[in-house]
């Protein structure tokens, strides 16, 4: 099957099996170095990519669903301005995920930040279907339960959940400051 899609900013025409998982396409056909394992359904959560700007597990996306899709892996994401917020949060807390899950955890955090800061996207992940903010009036209150559920998608135990939450909170502050400055 021939698939036209954009991976890390490059328009590619790939000839692959129609049911091949995206994670394997990235590893074997594209030579991406940030996705290092294919868990074959063990739900390890180490293969997160941004598919059309939304975080997705690449091991459960078949090739035939990739027609005209835009895929961003950690390889290109780490060159963006958004990554700086998370990188600074890692530095501020002195905690970073291990090399195995670094890319995936960073992209999960990016997905959470996008949901917390975006005004236009449908927000549906906090309590009572509200965004991750507990109350719109109090921006500082986050629905930690919903954030933990997101973060637990990656099963690597290298970091404590409270450390991860702290990173999300700090990265969110940087992201908001950036938005204010831009406005």
């Amino acid at each position, binding site marked *: *099957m021939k698939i036209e899609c954009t991976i890390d900013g490059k328009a590619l025409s790939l000839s*692959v*099996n*129609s*049911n*091949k*998982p995206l994670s*394997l396409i990235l590893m*074997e056909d594209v030579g991406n170095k940030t996705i290092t394992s294919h868990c*074959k*359904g*063990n*739900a390890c959560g180490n293969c*997160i990519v941004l598919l059309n700007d*939304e*975080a*997705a*597990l690449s*091991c*459960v*996306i*078949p090739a*035939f*669903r990739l027609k005209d899709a835009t895929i961003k892996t950690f390889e290109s994401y780490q060159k963006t301005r958004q990554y700086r917020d998370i990188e600074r949060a890692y530095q501020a807390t002195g905690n970073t995920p291990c090399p195995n899950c670094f890319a995936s955890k960073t992209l*999960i955090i990016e*997905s959470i930040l996008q*949901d917390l800061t975006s005004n236009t996207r*449908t927000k*549906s*992940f906090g*309590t*009572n*279907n509200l965004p991750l903010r507990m109350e719109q009036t109090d921006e500082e209150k986050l629905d930690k339960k*919903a954030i933990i*559920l*997101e973060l*637990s*998608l990656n*099963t690597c135990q290298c970091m404590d959940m409270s450390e991860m939450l702290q990173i999300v909170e700090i990265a969110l502050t940087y992201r908001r400051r950036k938005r204010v400055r831009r406005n």
Partner: protein
Amino acid sequence: MYEGIRSPVIHAPKTLSEFAAIAWRYPQATIWAGGSYLMSQSEYYPSEIKDGIIDLGGMEELKKITRNDRFVEIGSMVTASQLLSAGKLVLPDILQETLRTLASQIVRRQVTIGGSLCVPDVRLSLSTTLAVLDAMAEIKYYQGGKVSTHWIPISKLYDREGKLLLGEQKALLTRIRIGLEYGDYQKIVTVEDPIRSTDECVIVAFQAKRSQNSLNKVQFCITFPSKAFHISKDLESKLSGMTLPIHPERVNTLSYELVTELTKMHSAISDLQLERGRRIFESFLHELNAKSLSQ
């Protein structure tokens, strides 16, 4: 790398009549909704897929949510994330809670309602909740060139081990229907992840109507993902009509009756799961008692 394995043909019907034609020509084809279950099987790739894949992703008629005065209808290709964003007007609280705890947002964007209900061997929280809500599923059977439509209660879609009972013929779940009359006490509890810790997981859903301190229309379902899908009509009828608060000793007796019933009917359930199920069931009755006393 995987020489000799042919790339499966992808059939992409746009309408149900196109689907019927494809299903007739390729009876062995795999029906593809969200794909999260199929792709999480260890033998999924590389492997030969006979007659190819029927991708339901382009069928707009399966992606609708409609509501009238009596019920809500949800297309089978609606994702958990889309359904959750439909909000309170459309969904009962217990279903919202189920969808929220089903998986993370990243996974919810991919999981479809039909796909989740049609997983062949593992029962997830959505089936449990919909069984308690008395939801119905529209199933289309394709045999030869003929199509027949049946409305089947979700509770009858599975056998007592929780395996899907759609028969040998090609079948498609097109939509589900949930009535808008439900009890004022609704609760679902899921202990452990049904996919990652299947052997330890317990899912219990409960709903009841309270009127003047008595319980009515009690509906209750307990699921052990790959072992049992249990609805106790006996306990439901015992609880319906009971006056609140229920004496703590009676609560205890009822919970052990549930354990006896489960042990008798499902030998595969572990002691840990049984104890978890019993305690969750008990906690629902204690909560009902507490609510009745605080009124």
